[in-house]
């Protein structure tokens, strides 16, 4: 184990090239001398003035990685958090390559060992330097609060004074990571290194990047997805003060399902000039083959598909049809989940300075390393000639896992040959986003005399996210065949039917899961009611008394455990005083779900009065293994609850004649403060296991907890999202 770690991180000794972009501004350090930095490894540089610069490899999109990942290194090195300066890593193969991504709730999972090891290796090198300097035994030396001391004599030295000597040593082969009992920083509350710069408006997001000679650019696109330009006249646009250029940017990818939609770029001296220029363009459009697509068609198509027997079998245990057909009392319900958009607060943008033989980019991508690789090919430049900096990013939610806006920026940069900041407007963002897939679900189940479910049929029809991938079944991203209640109900079947559509869809916070949790955990509630059982007791019975573990994902060796799921359900129930009597019109709903190795249970408490919903409280239990930064993890849960309520109450994208009808926040409402719960309580299950995901897992079970609470409060079962005005009827 230790040996493997050592080999894996042996490059950490090299004092490799430090590539980072200072978006945090240097920490104010009154009373400190400027000092000089000694680069120790790709994550770490130590200053003679006592400051320790830690480079965070993953883009910060609000998930708190600029705090949590540097904590790992600081812990092992033995420094005080107040001496840490966090730098943002450029795209760089040395950061574990493809995992330099804000995706899959994986940042802490991926860097839990490497960043601790980076700190441990640095400490080892510094101690070797101390041993040489002081002529004492290494086992008698240690580092605390950034100072090397020893138990043989009173000599002490700040690590900055030993850093230059340290990098001349080779790492020992007996480096051991700290034990949990010895943690000082991990598990504690530390300050956000960027807090001062955020609240004073100094922190630089992608749209705040300013470079000399920079122009702004944006693309006017057609109303339908896949529209192309028949002809255009830019004379009036070019007459606007500040507008410099206007030119065609051809579509990228497949014409009917373009990765980047065709349009006319306007380049100008200011955002305002570009926006006015876009309005002044005269463009004739070919609306393309998708002009007849609409969500009303999809409602019809999916309603039919879930009644047909032609669905692809995803999983089939026992004989579901035999039991359902012979059960006159079987429960059936149809659920629907709409298209929704990501609407990050900061619309996508990319600043790019392309020269003949080099390129510098200020990125807002969630996957800078993949972006760098793409640009290397697209710009035909060697990797070392491209510096890709990562700005602080105003929200991700999966939107920035697409490189569409990078490609558009690069195409414009090739044409303009001057630095540009390329941006999308909010209208572009809603109209040309890739949406969470649209789907219908027909659920059927039988309960035996004791009230236990014995048959479960889940038919899903929808616009699968991966339907265009030739090497995958369309259900691949929309069903998780080993997710509960698979393995818990003897006769269990899932079927998938693809609704053929070109409308653009992509992945959004806990993809697939955010749909399935709503459907499965709402229907589970319906079954509990039908069995005349308490929804919590019913779930616990389905999970069974004894611990059982089932294979969830063979490739990644993921298992799903009944006892860990039960533990979060029971903890959320206990902390919310589940079962207490509530006044009329008030109710509690529970839902538990497993995503990215993390178990979450929410209890929502709501009241419904004359059709008006008030969400009083969410009580949440979390099992995400070891909790690295509890305050940050709680923030992620709070945020996921707000985001989940937003999607459940409001969010829906309609398409008519190939055109997205939602254009901005006035017709695509998202949750506002007055609608958000006054109380949110988050509890963690004590765990010694390795940390698992936290950015996405709390999101999927919000919708069913909320809708189950609404049912408990007023007897109205929400089966179609969003809730919108359904309670008013």
């Amino acid at each position, binding site marked *: 184990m230790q040996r493997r770690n050592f080999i894996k991180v042996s490059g950490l000794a090299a004092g490799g090239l430090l590539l980072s972009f200072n978006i945090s501004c240097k920490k104010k350090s009154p009373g400190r001398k400027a000092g000089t930095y000694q680069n120790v490894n790709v994550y770490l540089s130590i200053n003679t003035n006592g400051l320790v610069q830690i480079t965070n490899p993953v883009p*910060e*999109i*609000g*998930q708190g990685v600029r705090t949590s990942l540097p904590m790992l290194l600081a812990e092992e090195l033995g420094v005080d958090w107040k001496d840490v300066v966090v730098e943002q890593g450029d795209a760089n193969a040395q950061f574990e390559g493809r995992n330099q991504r804000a995706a899959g709730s994986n940042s802490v999972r991926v860097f839990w060992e490497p960043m601790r090891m980076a700190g441990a290796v640095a400490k080892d090198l510094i101690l070797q330097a101390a041993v040489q300097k002081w002529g004492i035994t290494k086992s008698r030396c240690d580092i605390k609060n950034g100072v090397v001391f020893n138990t043989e004599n009173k000599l002490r030295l700040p690590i900055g004074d030993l850093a230059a000597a340290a990098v001349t040593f080779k790492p020992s082969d007996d480096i051991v990571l700290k034990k949990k009992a010895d943690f000082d920083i991990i598990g504690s509350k530390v*300050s*956000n290194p*960027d*807090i*001062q710069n*955020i*609240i*004073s*408006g*100094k*922190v*630089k*997001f992608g*749209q*705040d990047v*300013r470079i000399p000679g920079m122009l702004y650019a944006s693309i006017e696109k057609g109303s339908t997805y896949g529209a192309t330009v028949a002809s255009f006249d830019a004379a009036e646009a070019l007459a606007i*003060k500040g507008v410099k250029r206007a030119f065609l940017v051809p579509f990228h990818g497949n014409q009917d399902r373009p990765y980047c939609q065709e349009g006319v770029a306007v380049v100008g001296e*200011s*955002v*305002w000039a570009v*926006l006015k220029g876009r309005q002044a363009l005269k463009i004739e459009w070919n609306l393309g083959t998708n002009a007849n697509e609409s969500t009303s068609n999809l409602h019809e198509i999916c309603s039919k598909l879930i009644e047909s027997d032609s669905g692809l079998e995803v999983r089939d245990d026992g004989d579901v049809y035999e039991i359902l057909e012979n059960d006159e009392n079987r429960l059936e319900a149809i659920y629907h989940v709409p298209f929704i958009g990501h*609407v*990050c*607060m*900061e*619309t996508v943008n990319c600043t790019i300075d392309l020269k003949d033989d080099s390129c510098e980019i200020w990125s807002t991508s969630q996957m800078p390393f993949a972006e760098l690789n793409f640009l290397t090919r697209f710009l035909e430049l060697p990797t070392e000639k491209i510096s890709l900096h990562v700005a*602080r*990013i*105003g*929200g*991700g*939610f999966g939107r920035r896992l697409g490189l569409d806006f990078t490609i558009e920026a690069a195409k414009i940069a090739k044409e303009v040959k001057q630095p540009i900041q390329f941006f999308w*407007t*909010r209208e572009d963002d809603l109209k040309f986003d890739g949406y969470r897939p649209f789907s219908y679900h027909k659920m059927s189940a039988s309960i035996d005399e004791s009230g236990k479910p014995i048959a479960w049929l889940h038919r899903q029809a929808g616009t699968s996210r991966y339907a265009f991938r030739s090497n995958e079944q369309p259900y691949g991203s929309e069903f998780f065949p080993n997710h509960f209640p698979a393995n818990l109900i003897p006769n269990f079947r899932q079927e998938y039917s693809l609704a053929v559509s070109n409308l653009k869809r992509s992945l959004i916070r806990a993809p697939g899961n955010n749909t399935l949790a709503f459907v499965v955990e709402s229907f589970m509630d319906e079954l509990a009611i039908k069995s005349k059982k308490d929804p919590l007791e019913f779930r616990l019975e389905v999970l069974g008394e004894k611990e059982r573990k089932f294979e969830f994902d063979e490739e990644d060796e993921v298992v799903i455990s009944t006892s860990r799921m039960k533990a979060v359900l029971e903890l959320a129930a206990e902390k919310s005083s589940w079962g207490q009597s509530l006044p009329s019109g008030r109710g509690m709903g529970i839902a538990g779900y497993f995503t990215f190795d993390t178990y979450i249970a929410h209890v929502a408490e709501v009241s419904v009065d004359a059709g008006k919903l008030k969400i009083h409280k969410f009580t949440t239990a979390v099992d995400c293994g070891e909790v690295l930064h509890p*305050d940050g993890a709680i*923030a*992620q849960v*709070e*945020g*996921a*609850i*707000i*985001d989940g309520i*937003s999607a459940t109450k409001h969010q829906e994208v309609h398409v008519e004649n190939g055109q997205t009808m939602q254009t*901005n*926040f*006035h017709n695509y409402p*998202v*949750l*506002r*403060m*007055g609608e*958000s*719960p*006054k109380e*949110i309580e988050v509890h963690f299950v004590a765990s010694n296991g390795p940390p698992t995901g936290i950015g996405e897992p709390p999101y999927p079970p919000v919708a069913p907890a909320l809708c189950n609470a609404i049912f408990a409060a007023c007897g109205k079962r929400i089966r179609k999202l969003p809730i919108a005005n359904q309670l008013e009827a």
Partner: protein
Amino acid sequence: MLTLTINDKEYTIDVEPDKPLLWVLREELGLTGAKYGCGIGQCGACTVHVDDVSIRSCSIPVSRIGGKKVTTIEGLTDTNHPILTAWEEENVPQCGYCQTGQIMSAFALVKQNRHPSDDDIDNAMSGNICRCGTYYRIRKAIRKATN
């Protein structure tokens, strides 16, 4: 030529009169603390004060500011203000993009109402969208700063 008073400093600039204040701040004056989020006054990311009242700078032409006093996040120089202290103690921001607008709205609230009720807070803050979902901590911070 237009003369503006921003953060107690006078600027004389040559700018189109219909250009929204937001873009003047961000592009002409290098004050990038106010953000673009929607361009139609719906999200509050661009919130600044004009004569101590919160306004959406994306939707007001610069020519309408006249001689009024504009304050942006960069002009909140009292770093010990209870709102900023509470924001830090509650560790409110996640991505941080909307936060300058949220803080400007919170400042305007407490200037008018030293002890706002929860309803007052909701009313004052509901024009500011946060997609990371920091509402719970924003409310906590404002309560803390005003109790």
